[in-house]
């Protein structure tokens, strides 16, 4: 390479500053990101390692079921590989309600043991270490929300689970004398315990002398190898494992010793007392059973006697009863007979009365008839007398006179006739005679007639009189007979009546007699019953007395035995505890903080591996387009150089140097910026989880070298490849201008109706887009990357949202949790529910049982931050806690068929609805079917019904918390509620959701910085890519631009030719980026997510809008900058010569 060529190279750089800078920038971005994140991980490790070294963190923690004595310590210390041992005490306690009711692990302040060094040295932040028994040291960066200050008082409640704390500790009341951090607890995890809610919320340190326990509860062991192996390293892991095995051996040996010295002895003693107990028990039992037999036999006898008497009485009673019935029926019969007889008599009486009346009536009728007939006859007689008298006095003389006259007349005439012999006078005398004769006859007949008439009337009267007399006689006879009949009837009736009376009296007497007999029998029976009753009571009294006596004796004996048995059982329990002495060897990996820290660091490493690859890809693309353009511009120059006799290599070298300088400069700048900023920004976010001080930068040289090498290699290779393509031409060919890329019809043109509607700019844009494919790719990838990054940044912010919003507002509907000192059944906690029920401010409440649980599914085990929750009333759970699916928000109901688990747990293990999981813990061990997966962001929960719980674990759940929903959940209302509730000394604590929410929000705020970094990176990416692209685009098409200008297109119109292309590409890139963003977000979120927290999985539409908007904004900014460049294109210069 000649000097002039070198000079040429530097000039080239100077002339193409923008291009050079864009290559440099994109490389800086990629390498910086890579180096920065890669530096974060070792810096974090380094921080932890130094911290552990300084605080002399133990390598092993030994815990035994029986504690440790001096011999054990000696044995451990003598184990090969152990450099020092520090015995220590710990116990778990619960502070009193006034002190917060938190579960605390009390540990003894680290102290040197003999020649051994002190381990787990505390980092004292304030005050001093406790010296007196009543002094205590609290944690400095408390996560539980209870913040103690030096001088505060802390009181522990006496009950710690089933143990008495005062047996373990000298003091229960302490004064805070200092705050510190412990290397044992570098993260938020505090571990679990068997007391309270099973979750340790903070640790505290007290003086060693404060522990009453004889044997040490734990041993901290420091190994020889840990001086030379750095924490978290593979070497450490290996050494740690092998020494752990050795320690196990020591443990077994010590266990055997313990077994021999302590356990066998105790066993023998226990055996003796057991035998004695059994003997005595048998004896006493025999006595008791004899007594019992006696009582039972007398009871039997007595019962029999009573039964006999009773049966006799019963018979008598039966008889009496039948007699009574008989009497009753006779009575009835008697009364009915009497009444029927009486009825007959009265009937007959009536009849008689009727007959009498009839008789009276007919008699009077008859009498009146006779009288009227007599009267008639009498009147007829009087009439006759009158007529006769009248006749005699008047008529008869008249008649007789008439007759005599007539007779004289006749006789005179007869004498005349006879006298007269003249016929004619004779004839007239005859006629007169005749007439006189007739008159005489008439008168004669009249007379006789009247006489006969009188005669007849008289006869008639006489016959009538006779008839009447006969009738009278007959009627009288009839009446007389009737009267006689009546009389006889009357007599008969009288007789009947008398008879009845006699019968009545007779029957009545009989009945009275029978009744008397019965009454006597009844009174006799009653006496018998009374007698029996008395006998019964007396006998029973006697028997009861005997029974009482027996019971007394028996309970006395039982008590004695129970006491004895308890003694034996206690001894047995004690022995059982001892009988399986077991040591547990815990390594640092079992320390939650230690493992969480390394997990987090490794996750970060994973992120570090993805981003830079992407940036590097873009860098390569930028490099390709830029170098291609550069070399094409220098085509003639290359031809000329070739013609002058320069070798291909020296020509290539020029461009390689160009690329190399850009790559190296970019890498260096990027590395410096990345390494100096990213570790601090990222660790700042992690600081919410770990308190081990501030990070110091540790350069990750291999990664830096790798990053730089990758960048340099890529750019160099790209420039060589592009150069080689150009150099393949013959010099003459190279010196001629490269034929411009021919225009081509694109597919779109064949859709004539559409194409026709396109404006020129649109047509041109469309053709150009497809003409320069590499540019299309680069823009789309670059812009997509930018969009995706922004989507991911906002998506990450969105993913924090449900932690606060959904978790504390939608899912947790309750406001407060009341924790009773002792858990229990519904009944046992009724004091709590009734107290809460009476509060005005309480709208709903529900008892729940929450216990730490271990979940197993297909060989995967989870025993951290997982709780089994049993709710008292699953039907009303949705008013307290809403269990629903995340997608679709479908409400899930808790049934007895199976359990509900949270989404994070199901995701982690791949548990699906219908799978069976194994749940175990203090409460037991069983399998249950998963019936649903619900939305939950904090910790892992398994919900089940009390019925299922008892069927799975064979006991009723012991409720240990009460979720309460308040009507008014304002700060003041909460405070007053809390203080009211805490007056009951059975209540350990009241905590509020609002407090937890606030803490959480603070924690998440520090993550905003990470999001800002991502957005800045995205912006940088967009600028670099778009600027570079547009820059090249303009350079390539400067002639075209000049032509437009000459044709009279104004600046706006000219620019639009370029911009349309940019905008289309940007939009395309945004579209791709939005899709890519979804994946990127999900990757980042799942990588960043810590074990017991689920981040939201939802990206809000606004995030997409922001991402698209920001990207578009960046693109427009680039276009705005570029418009100056377009304006500056000189027509004359550009068109002067062929390129």
């Amino acid at each position: 390479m000649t000097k002039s060529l070198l000079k040429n190279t530097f000039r080239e750089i100077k002339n193409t500053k923008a291009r050079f800078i864009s290559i440099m920038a994109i490389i800086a971005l990629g390498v910086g990101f890579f180096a920065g994140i890669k530096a974060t991980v070792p810096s974090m490790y380094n921080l932890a390692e130094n911290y552990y070294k300084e605080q002399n963190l133990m390598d092993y923690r030994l815990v035994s079921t029986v504690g440790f004595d001096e011999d054990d310590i000696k044995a451990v210390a003598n184990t090969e590989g152990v450099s020092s041992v520090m015995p220590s005490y710990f116990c778990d306690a619960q502070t009193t309600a006034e002190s917060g009711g938190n579960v605390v692990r009390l540990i003894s302040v680290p102290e040197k043991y003999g020649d051994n060094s002190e381990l787990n040295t505390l980092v004292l932040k304030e005050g001093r270490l406790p010296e007196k028994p009543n002094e205590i040291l609290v944690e400095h960066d408390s996560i539980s929300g209870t913040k103690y200050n030096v001088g505060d008082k802390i009181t522990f409640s006496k009950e710690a689970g089933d143990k008495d704390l005062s047996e373990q500790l000298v003091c229960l009341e302490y004064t805070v004398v200092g705050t510190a951090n412990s290397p044992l607890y570098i993260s938020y995890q505090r571990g679990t315990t068997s007391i309270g809610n099973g979750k340790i919320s903070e640790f505290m340190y007290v003086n060693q002398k404060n522990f009453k326990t004889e044997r040490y509860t734990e041993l901290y062991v420091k190994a020889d190898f840990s001086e030379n192996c750095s924490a978290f390293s593979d070497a450490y892991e290996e050494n740690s494992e092998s020494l752990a095995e050795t320690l196990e051996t020591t443990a077994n040996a010590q266990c055997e010793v313990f077994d021999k010295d302590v356990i066998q002895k105790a066993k023998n003693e226990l055996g003796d007392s057991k035998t004695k107990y059994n003997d005595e028990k048998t004896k006493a039992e025999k006595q008791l059973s004899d007594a019992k037999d006696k009582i039972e036999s007398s009871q039997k006898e007595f019962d029999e006697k009573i039964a006999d008497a009773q049966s006799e009485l019963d018979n008598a009673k039966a008889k009496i009863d039948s007699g009574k019935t008989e009497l009753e029926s006779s009575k009835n019969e008697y009364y009915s007979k009497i009444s029927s007889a009486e009825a007959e008599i009265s009937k007959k009486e009536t009849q008689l009365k009727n007959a009498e009346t009839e008789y009276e009536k007919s008699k009077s009728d008859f009498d009146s008839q006779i009288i009227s007939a007599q009267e008639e006859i009498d009147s007829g007689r009087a009439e006759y007398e009158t007529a006769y008298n009248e006749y005699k006095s008047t008529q008869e003389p008249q008649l007789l006179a008439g007759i005599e006259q007539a007779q004289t007349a006749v006789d005179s005439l007869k004498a005349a006739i006879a006298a007269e012999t003249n016929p004619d006078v004779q004839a007239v005398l005859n006629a007169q005679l005749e007439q006189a004769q007739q008159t005489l006859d008439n008168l004669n007949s009249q007379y006789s007639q009247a006489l006969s008439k009188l005669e007849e009337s008289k006869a008639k009267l006489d016959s009538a009189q006779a008839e009447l007399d006969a009738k009278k006689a007959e009627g009288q006879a009839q009446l007389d007979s009737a009267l006689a009949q009546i009389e006889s009837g009357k007599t008969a009736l009288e007789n009947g009546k008398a008879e009845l009376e006699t019968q009545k009296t007779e029957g009545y007497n009989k009945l009275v007699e029978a009744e008397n007999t019965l009454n006597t029998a009844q009174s006799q029976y009653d006496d018998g019953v009374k007698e029996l009753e008395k006998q019964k009571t007396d006998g029973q009294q006697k028997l009861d007395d005997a029974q009482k006596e027996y019971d007394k004796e028996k309970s006395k004996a039982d008590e004695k035995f129970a006491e004895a048995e308890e003694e034996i059982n206690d001894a047995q329990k004690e022995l059982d505890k001892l009988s399986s002495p077991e040591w547990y060897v815990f390594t640092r990996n079992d320390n939650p903080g230690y493992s969480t820290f390394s997990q987090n660091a490794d996750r970060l490493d994973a992120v570090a591996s993805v981003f830079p690859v992407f940036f590097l890809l873009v860098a390569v693309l930028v490099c390709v387009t830029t170098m291609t353009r550069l070399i094409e511009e220098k085509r003639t120059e290359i031809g000329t150089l070739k013609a002058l006799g320069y070798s291909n290599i020296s020509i290539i070298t020029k461009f390689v140097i160009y690329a190399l300088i850009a790559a190296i400069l970019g890498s260096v700048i990027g590395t410096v910026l990345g390494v100096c900023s990213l570790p601090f920004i990222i660790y700042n976010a992690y600081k919410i989880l770990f308190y081990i001080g501030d990070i110091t930068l540790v350069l990750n040289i291999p990664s830096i070298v790798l990053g730089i090498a990758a960048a340099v290699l890529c750019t160099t290779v790209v420039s060589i490849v592009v150069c080689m393509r150009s150099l393949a031409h013959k010099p003459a060919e190279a010196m001629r201008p490269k034929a411009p890329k021919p225009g081509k019809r694109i597919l779109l043109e064949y859709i004539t109706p559409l194409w026709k509607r396109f404006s020129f700019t649109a047509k041109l844009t469309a053709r150009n887009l497809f003409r320069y494919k590499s540019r299309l790719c680069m823009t789309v990838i670059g812009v997509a990357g930018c969009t995706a990054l922004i989507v991911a940044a906002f998506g990450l912010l969105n993913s924090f949202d449900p932690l606060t919003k959904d978790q504390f507002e939608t899912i947790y509907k309750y406001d407060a949790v009341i924790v009773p000192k002792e858990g229990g059944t519904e009944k046992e906690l009724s004091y709590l529910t009734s107290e809460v029920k009476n509060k005005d401010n309480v709208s709903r409440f529900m008892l729940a049982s929450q216990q730490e649980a271990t979940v197993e599914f297909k060989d995967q085990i989870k025993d951290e931050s997982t709780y089994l929750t049993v709710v008292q009333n699953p039907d009303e759970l949705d008013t307290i806690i809403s269990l629903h699916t995340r997608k679709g928000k479908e409400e899930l109901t808790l049934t007895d068929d199976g359990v509900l688990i949270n989404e994070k747990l199901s995701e982690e293990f791949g548990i699906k609805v219908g799978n069976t999981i194994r749940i175990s813990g203090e409460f037991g061990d069983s399998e249950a079917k998963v019936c649903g997966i619900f939305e939950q962001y904090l910790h892992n929960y398994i919900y089940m019904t009390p019925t299922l719980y008892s069927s799975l674990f064979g006991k009723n759940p012991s409720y240990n918390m009460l979720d309460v929903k308040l009507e008014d959940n304002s700060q003041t209302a909460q405070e007053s509620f809390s203080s009211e509730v805490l007056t009951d000394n059975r209540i350990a604590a009241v905590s509020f959701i609002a407090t937890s929410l606030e803490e959480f929000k603070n924690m998440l705020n520090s993550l905003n910085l990470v999001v800002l970094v991502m957005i800045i990176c995205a912006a940088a990416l967009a600028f670099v890519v778009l600027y570079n692209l547009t820059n090249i685009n303009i350079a390539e098409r400067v002639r075209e631009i000049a032509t437009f200008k000459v044709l009279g297109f104004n600046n706006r119109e000219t620019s639009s030719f370029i911009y349309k292309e940019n905008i289309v590409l940007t939009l395309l890139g945004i579209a791709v980026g939005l899709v890519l963003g979804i994946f990127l977000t999900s990757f980042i979120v799942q990588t960043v997510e810590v074990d017991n927290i689920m981040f939201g999985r939802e990206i809000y539409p606004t995030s997409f809008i922001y991402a698209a908007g920001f990207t578009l904004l960046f693109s427009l900014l680039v276009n705005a900058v570029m418009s100056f460049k377009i304006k500056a294109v000189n027509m004359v210069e550009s068109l002067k010569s062929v390129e």
Partner: protein
Amino acid sequence: MSLVEFKNVYKRYKMGEVVINAVDGISFKIEQGEFAIVVGASGAGKTTVLNILGGMDNCTEGEIIVRGKDISKFSDKQLIEYRRFDIGFVFQFYNLVHNLTAKENVELAAQICKNPLDSEKAIESVGLLDRKDNFPAQLSGGEQQRVSIARALAKRPGLLLCDEPTGALDYNTGRQILKLLQDTCKKEKMTVVLITHNSAITPMADHVIEMKSGKIVRDIFNENPKSVYEIEW
């Protein structure tokens, strides 16, 4: 009044300390409908004159009156308007837009004018109707130049400026192009200003301006301009 009048026009370039007068105080007039040729050796300043006349460049001093307006005083915006409506350009290297077909190239110019010629007709007038849908790369140099002329004509410019239109063409093709320009000038009464270094073609012009080192050395009128085919070079 003349269509174009240059009055004492200078164009100076400053190259460090040295000031170069590319155009050194020239004055001339071109009448409506004239076929004018500016001839001169390389570096005589003829392209600069054309650029200034076409509104692509500014003069340093002097007045350029086109249709009574002094374009040397025009703002950028006015110059764009001027180029858009008054000027048609034909370049030595055609400067077609490679991504547009022959017809589309013509339409490109036509679409921004007030009263353009029909694009098809413009193409037809240069005899390329059958090739109208071809891309520039598919056309020969002469054909490309004809498209370029059609593009200029489609605008119905007041002034057609041609910068060495035959420079990149062979003899025969060059003649055809010149013929096309001459015919256009005569038929359409179009004022054409053509730049060439080849003085052999000057007889075909109505008006010949010869330049040398930025100055006009000859400004003559041909009474009887010859047809292109009568000229040989």
